[in-house]
């Protein structure tokens, strides 16, 4: 391994060498300036090689293949689970359920909580106005299936959760509260401690969408105290195709299965089946095997650098970008404008230039950002905008790249006559 072990200072240039794609040049010979990591992160050679090695040397199906390769693949797959469990501070390895992404993990919780009979028409489900669609739609569907009411926290003008009405919102009727840790659009880091304490005081379960949190913050699920935490591999330098649902074991153990199929059963007759204990109960079919290997390599990589260091870098880059962007005339940041309790995603509008046109012009200069509603339409509606342009950062982002972004935004303004 060519890492970073024992590194005392955060060396971005050194880290960038691990990411082959960051050396790419795009049309017009512009160097790639990748500012779309909240969408998906790039992958270090350590992760790419781990997946490559798995397919070259150890590929087989897991759990059911009795041959040598089957044993190697099974061990490699389960080692990925061990590494993820350790990375997030899970008290038990079998609290880590693999799904295909964070959306599926959130759907899994919503589905099985409904099927368990824990949520009925007298109950309420509480979410927030700043959620990603994947933490809104499954709860709307659960509400439709069960008759439970859906309620939500609003968002302040600054882009923070409005907790003023928390005592009216989270009540004895509340069965479940599902909230994002870090907003993918506003960048806000939410005060989970307050929400979890309130929810538990009324006996409600808490689901945390940690898709943007696990990649950039040190996470300890045991210390956090939530009941379920969902996130995805591809935003944390891991591969696509694997998501994680962490759940308290006692809860997982009493919940019914999600999908039916292979690997999730104890025994099957033509009339009925009994189900395997967690996590297998929730992992029907051939699981994401190579993806688990890749995700294991990803958490090794992040751990070697240190999540505290990554969080500090993210904070520094975000502060730098917030300052630089706000110097552009006509640029309006939607979300907290200071790097306090804030993640590394900045959404903004640029005069009346449509975000599609902004991102197209940036792309013509090699700067990759996201434009649109970022799967958070209600949060956009809250701020009276239909769409925004979003720049998002990660451990490999440099201040020089932020400068190129700013330069490209000036170019865009000029292009559209602003």
């Amino acid at each position: 391994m060519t890492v970073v072990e024992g590194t005392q200072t955060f060396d971005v240039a050194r880290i960038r060498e691990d990411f082959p794609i960051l050396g790419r040049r795009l049309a017009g010979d512009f160097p790639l300036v990748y500012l779309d990591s909240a969408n998906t992160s790039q992958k270090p050679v350590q992760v790419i090689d781990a997946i490559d090695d798995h397919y070259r040397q150890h590929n087989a199906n897991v759990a059911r293949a009795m041959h040598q390769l089957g044993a190697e693949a099974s061990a490699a797959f389960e080692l990925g689970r061990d590494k993820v469990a350790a990375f997030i501070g899970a008290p038990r390895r079998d609290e880590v359920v693999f799904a295909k992404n964070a959306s599926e993990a959130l759907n899994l919780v919503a589905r099985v909580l409904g099927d368990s009979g824990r949520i009925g028409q007298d109950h309420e489900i509480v979410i927030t106005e700043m959620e990603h669609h994947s933490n809104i739609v499954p709860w709307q569907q659960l509400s439709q299936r069960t008759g439970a009411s859906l309620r939500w926290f609003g968002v302040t003008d600054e882009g923070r959760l409005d907790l003023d009405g928390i005592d009216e919102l989270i009540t004895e009727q509340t069965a479940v509260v599902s909230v994002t840790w870090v907003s993918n659009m506003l960048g806000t880091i939410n005060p989970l401690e307050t929400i979890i304490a309130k929810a538990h005081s009324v006996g409600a379960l808490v689901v945390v969408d940690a898709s943007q949190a696990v990649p950039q913050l040190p996470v300890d699920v045991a210390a956090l105290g939530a009941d379920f935490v969902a996130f995805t591999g591809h935003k944390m330098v891991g591969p696509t195709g694997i998501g994680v649902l962490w759940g308290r074991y006692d809860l997982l153990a009493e919940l019914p299965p999600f999908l039916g199929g292979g690997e999730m059963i104890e025994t099957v007759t033509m009339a009925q089946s009994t189900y395997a204990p967690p996590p297998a109960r929730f992992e029907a079919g051939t699981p994401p095997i190579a993806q688990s290997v890749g995700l294991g390599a990803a958490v090794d990589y992040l751990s070697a650098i240190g999540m505290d260091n990554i969080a500090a870098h993210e904070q520094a880059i975000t502060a730098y970008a917030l300052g630089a962007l706000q110097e552009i005339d006509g640029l309006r940041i939607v979300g907290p404008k200071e790097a306090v309790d804030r993640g590394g995603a900045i959404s903004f509008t640029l005069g009346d230039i449509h975000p599609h046109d902004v991102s197209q012009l940036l792309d013509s200069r090699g700067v990759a950002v996201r434009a649109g509603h970022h799967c958070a339409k209600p949060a956009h509606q809250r701020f009276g905008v239909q769409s925004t342009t979003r720049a998002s950062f990660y451990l490999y982002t440099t201040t020089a790249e932020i400068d190129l972004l700013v330069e490209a935004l000036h170019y865009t303004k000029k292009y559209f006559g602003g």
Partner: protein
Amino acid sequence: MTDAMNVDSLYQEIILDHYKRPHGAGLREPFEAEVHHVNPTCGDEITLRVHLDGNTVSDVSYAAQGCSISQASTSVLNDLIVGKNVEEGMAILDEFNTLMHGKGKIEPDEDVLEDGIAFAGVAQFPGRIKCALLGWMAWKDAVSQALVTTSSTTGDPK
């Protein structure tokens, strides 16, 4: 590749002109059909009305939120379609649609598409084709509904 991906081939002067001063924008009466279309990937929206006078498209009015490409293409649509009969309008739509899906290999017919030929460059940017077609698909939907409405109110046997 560099030439094809040149952003100037996308943002033709004609497109930027239509974007800044869209033709026929705003919702007007009378109309026989109104539709609301969205581009789910970006959230762009258009409300579009069609007024038919017999078989003639006598007005296409619209209110849209969208990027320069979608706004300009709806403006061009207004130029091209208003005053034509429904069959002629559908033929122009087909021509425009073909151009959009031609991957940049189709030579547009200026006699048919007029300012619409400026959108030839859009076909090189797969992510923007839906933008260019948003207003056109809305028009197709609206005119189909308007035909049903007018034929039922005039008691035309089907």
